[in-house]
């Protein structure tokens, strides 16, 4: 295993120390393992927190700041945070107006957040939980743990964060978060596996001419293996999955993200985005806003996820609202 680390056991602690040193706008509690805004907000507003396993950076710590999250609680690599930690983040985010938990739909995340929400409730903090489950590679059926939460998390955090910032109440923030999730679909493809520090070995072996189609963001194999194809074909597969799950029509305006899973050069992400925008242009669907880069990663996995959100006017306005975080920043 080749990584920049001191010991597999201290990866998270060491990385949090670096995060703290890198961003004076963040406050990092190294004991409780929570990341909060260093300044403000200085008025009552609905708190917004998220968390999950580490290894998906900049998600979630890189989205803490004005206009987005109030706090993040990173677990060990690919391991959801524990209830204590989530509770600490909830307390830190609470300004009397309640707290929204943005939870990616994984068994572990859901259970730990649920326990934390109960503990927070015991302390008198009103909590609303919003599940993100946008990955169309997984069927939402009794045969699965339901769809995974992946790229749409960024859209949910940005848009709900902006709504909280403009003074919406607890149910209002939870409601728009759910609406954004419901309007978003993602699909991912991997060219290589990734290696967790704890395991030391790649999650799967992939021949030089095959790719994993329908992967998540935890280094697991995908739904199926296919022969390596050109970018145009790969994008066609992904967009088919996305658009057949949520058909769009020409009147629709979209927010589109082409997201690198960690080991894909930006050059290739732009190339993929070109193909995605060609597919949408072909159907007359408007790409109103875009993100191209590494936002929800899976360590050093070479791969790409595509997320399409059918956005209404309110969502677009909230998307455009100022945001000031390490990973997303505009308008201020």
């Amino acid at each position, binding site marked *: 295993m080749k990584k920049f680390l001191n010991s*597999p056991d201290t990866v998270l602690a060491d990385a949090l120390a670096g995060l703290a040193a890198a961003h004076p706008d963040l406050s990092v509690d190294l004991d409780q393992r929570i990341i909060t805004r260093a300044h403000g907000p200085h008025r009552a507003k609905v708190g917004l927190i998220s968390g999950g*396993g580490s290894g998906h950076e900049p998600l979630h710590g890189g989205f803490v700041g004005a206009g987005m999250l109030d706090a993040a609680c990173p*677990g*060990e*690599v*690919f*391991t*959801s*945070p*524990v*209830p*204590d930690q989530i509770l600490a983040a909830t307390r830190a985010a609470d300004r009397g107006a309640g707290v929204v938990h943005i939870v990616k739909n*994984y*068994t*572990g995340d859901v*259970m*730990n957040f*649920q*326990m934390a929400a109960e503990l927070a409730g015991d302390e008198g903090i009103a909590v609303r939980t919003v599940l993100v489950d946008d990955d169309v*590679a*997984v069927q939402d059926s*009794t*045969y*699965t*743990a339901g769809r*995974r939460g992946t790229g749409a998390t960024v859209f949910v955090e940005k848009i709900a964060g902006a709504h909280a910032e403009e003074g919406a109440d607890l149910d209002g923030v939870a409601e728009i978060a759910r609406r954004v999730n419901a309007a978003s679909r993602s699909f991912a493809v991997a060219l290589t596996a990734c290696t*967790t520090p*704890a*395991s030391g*070995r790649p*999650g*799967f072996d992939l021949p030089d001419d095959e790719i994993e189609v329908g992967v*998540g963001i*935890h*280094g*697991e*194999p995908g*739904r*199926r293996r296919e022969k390596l194809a050109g970018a145009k074909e790969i994008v066609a597969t992904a967009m088919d999955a996305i658009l057949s799950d949520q058909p769009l029509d020409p009147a629709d305006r979209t927010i589109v993200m082409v997201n690198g899973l960690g080991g894909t050069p930006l050059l290739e992400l732009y190339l993929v985005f070109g193909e995605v925008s060609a597919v949408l242009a072909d159907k007359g669907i408007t790409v109103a806003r875009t993100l191209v880069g590494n936002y929800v990663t899976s360590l050093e996995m070479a791969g790409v996820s595509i997320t399409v959100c059918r956005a209404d006017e309110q969502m677009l306005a909230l998307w455009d609202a100022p945001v000031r975080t390490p990973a997303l920043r505009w308008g201020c």
Partner: protein
Amino acid sequence: MDAALARAWVQAIAAAIDEHTDQLTQLDSAIGDADHGANMRRGFSACLDALADTPLETPGDVLVRTGATLISSVGGAAGPLYGSAFRAIGRALAGPDAGAEQVLSALTEGLTAVKRLGAAVPGDKTIVDAYTPAVAAFEQELWEGGGLAAAAAHAAEAAEAGARATTTMQARKGRASYLGPRSVGHQDPGATSTALIFRALAEVTVR
């Protein structure tokens, strides 16, 4: 089972997990996210610390504390599931020394807690597939007149068989379910750690 035996059990689990960390992680690597070994090791080493400096009177105190420690140190799916199980087991062992019958009903409470939280049923390729036959074998042995040690030994064997039997199952709960048919052919990591937990119980009860 008294407090000392409960402690010994937790210590034996910690030792077993330590020895099998890599195996659990590699099983999880095949159909999950390659963290089950590290998760369990982190959890049970935290339990050793939590138990080390505290005089606890009843097996229930020991196991409730074990459960709470697992919840606050493991994370992932395993943390809440095993944490809730041990808390439930502990809550059912209030007195200073529990008999075999009481241990059975405590273990049953643990299984109920896992199923309530995780909503898994046998055949879903989870902890439940090792835990369920373990409790059944435990009960059967008591029914046939065996004591705690014999019951625990049968439970361990049944848990191991249950874990092995997950290999041919298609996962319907947890991360492995995302793989659909590709989850078939791999033994479930959680069922495997459950078998280690029952094997540890068998070990300490014969001493």
